[in-house]
């Protein structure tokens, strides 16, 4: 955890989301309630007493004196270790970080701030501010793109750039968590903007009711963004994905290629970080290779004329399948925004409707990749 300006009498508190157990006389266990992380140590009974006295008010020196504990250096090393493990916090530092947020935001995000403090091994206030400073560019306002926007806005993101040309229709009800009957006929971008501003009046969206094709200049949008999400599957997911992926690579921007598209309704999507993870071209090469004998044909002739005209596609799925892919993406995206750890992400995986286990593909960086490879 960040700063190390402790002195001998620094006041510490136990992380509010950690339970502490003494097992017998000489084992102490710290249990992170939220993510089940355990830190277990064999210690002397004096140390158990020391930990029991850490209360956010008394300094370490004061506690040691009251318990007649000497060995100052050992105590300091032990306390530093607990601090590095986010078991101990310095309330004074937390107050400083808290004071950098508006009281309304402190109240609004209170519960997730508490969670962040234990999950991300740093002050939750600091983590929350990192999220609030983001500007997110989202390509494709479908079930997944809009779903991610909604959950991001709920989490504190206030700046969005939205790109989609489609319009809300009657059957959008089965896909879009922002849906209202009164939105029918509006562009998805405009409808989503309206909904996000109801969640948080401070949300600002820059809207491009547009498609992305060969000559769309996406660079200015990407330059402005701190994080990019791609869910576009039109005109063709491979094409848009590669174009966006290469532009993000060139501009060194983190990208999430979301799952949840047809035939992959509960896929996880993947985080793409330049030179840290496989790039979009690595993925494309991987799929080209593994799917080279896979030439599926679909009986599109059997889509009845009236439905073909209305653009009703006969693909099946539930809104909650999209909610899975959205929520999964959110876990990875928030983690990256706060920790910048590219390696938490497991890459592309697939969850099936009738088996609760995600199978990951384990796609690796391609050393010969012409975008991110050695040459």
């Amino acid at each position: 955890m960040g700063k190390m300006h402790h002195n001998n009498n620094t006041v510490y508190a136990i992380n509010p989301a950690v339970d502490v157990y003494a097992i017998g006389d000489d084992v102490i266990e710290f249990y992170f309630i939220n993510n089940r992380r355990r830190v277990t140590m064999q210690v002397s009974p004096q140390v158990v007493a020391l930990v029991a006295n850490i209360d956010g008010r008394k300094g370490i020196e004061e506690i040691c004196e009251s318990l007649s504990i000497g060995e100052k250096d050992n105590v300091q090393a032990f306390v530093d270790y607990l601090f590095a493990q986010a078991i101990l916090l310095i309330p004074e530092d937390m107050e400083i970080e808290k004071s950098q947020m508006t009281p309304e935001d402190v109240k609004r995000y209170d519960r997730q701030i508490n969670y962040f403090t234990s999950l991300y091994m740093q002050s939750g206030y600091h983590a929350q501010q990192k999220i609030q400073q983001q500007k997110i560019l989202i390509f494709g306002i479908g079930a997944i793109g809009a779903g991610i926007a909604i959950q991001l806005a709920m989490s504190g993101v206030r700046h969005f750039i939205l790109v989609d040309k489609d319009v809300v229709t009657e059957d959008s009800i089965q896909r879009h968590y922002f849906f209202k009957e009164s939105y029918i006929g509006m562009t998805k971008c405009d409808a989503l903007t309206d909904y996000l501003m109801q969640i948080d009046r401070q949300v600002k969206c820059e809207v491009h009711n547009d498609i992305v094709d060969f000559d769309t200049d996406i660079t200015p949008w990407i330059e402005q963004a701190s994080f990019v999400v791609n869910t576009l599957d039109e005109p063709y997911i491979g094409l848009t994905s590669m174009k966006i992926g290469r532009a993000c690579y060139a501009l060194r921007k983190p990208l999430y290629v979301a799952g949840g598209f047809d035939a992959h309704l509960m896929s996880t999507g993947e985080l793409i970080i330049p030179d840290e993870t496989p790039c979009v071209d690595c993925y494309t090469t991987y799929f080209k290779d593994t799917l080279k004998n896979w030439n599926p044909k679909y009986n599109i002739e059997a889509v009845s004329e009236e439905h073909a005209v209305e653009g009703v596609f006969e693909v099946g799925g539930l809104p909650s399948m999209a909610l899975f892919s959205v929520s999964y993406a959110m876990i990875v995206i928030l983690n990256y925004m706060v920790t910048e750890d590219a390696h938490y992400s497991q890459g592309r995986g697939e969850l099936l409707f009738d088996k609760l286990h995600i199978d990951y593909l384990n796609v690796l960086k391609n050393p010969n990749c012409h975008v991110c490879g050695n040459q």
Partner: protein
Amino acid sequence: MSVGINDRLKLRPSVAVVSNGEVTEFFLSDIRHSIALRMQKEVTKLLFGLDGRLTVGEFMDANSLGSQTGEVMPLLDFLNKNCVLIKVDRKYSEDYNRYPRIYSLLENYFPTQQQVEDHFQIVRKSRVMIIGLGSVGTWVAQSLLMSGVRHFLFVDGDRVELSNLHRQGGFTEASIGQLKTDAFARRLKEMDAEVEIDCIVDWLDEVFFERHDIGHIDLIINCADKPTVDETSMIVGKYAMSHGIPHIIGGGYNLHQSLIGQVVIPGKTACLECFRMNLDDLNEIDTSNIRKLENKNRRVGSFPPLSALSSAITANEAFKALAGLDNLTMTGQRTEFLLRILNFANVEMPRRHDCKWCGYEGKYYQLQRDKD
């Protein structure tokens, strides 16, 4: 029902057909199930002509294959039973225009359009009770409405607070201060003005079901954690078991955010009491020398996407239970989503012979003893 020559069949457009030499693979892309058959390429090609307009007899005649109809019938029958081909025995109702994806999903499980329509209408007519409009109940309710459910009973005694907005779907800044039931009902009516919603502004306690006549209910989803999840679950469990109502005990709540909701079909799957007994067995450790030290400012947090993920699985399971699909996963199983490895961890929790609720001597349902 076997396929007859007067049936109209359609090769479903979401089935991917991959022909490699002698083997043809039919990939049900929505649910990623695959069926591979050794068959001639010409036959595979022929299947693409099945668009639901002509009867099998007319279709074979139109392709000058009338004399071979008898030989083709077992194949058509097999592909129909496996939901590659669907019998177009009726036109879908108007609901199809709003919910084509839900219909198409059901087509992976039922071989005739009549059955698909019937099962969707079961979903339309069902009435779902959701107790607790928090970070799970809100997402589950919206998901079910979007899947076609149109009758709800909501129970919650709380008002919307600013600190709810980051984790509870459907509330807005304008909802702050309003009763959760009112604000949420209004939100769902924005999505579908015709949805029927009843609300009870109250908390769950031992006599809740004596105090309130809840009417007919097809599924109860408990997402209430006040006073504790264990207490509310037992109250719901007892009521649901004594009335034979399928129920789901939602996960995703405080301290158990990573837990996925358990589904109980009374008399068929492990009940809550079975779960409790199984858990007691698992947790049987000697705690006599463990002492919990006081953490004076103990406050756990909440991670919104984790609750939403748990809600997604609960809504999937709820839909299966309502539509009568037999692929429930959260029965007799305790599942957590582990953030550390980004995957699910499943532990089997089977039905118990010695369960006081549904075992041999169970007070609600009794297991049949083996005859021998």
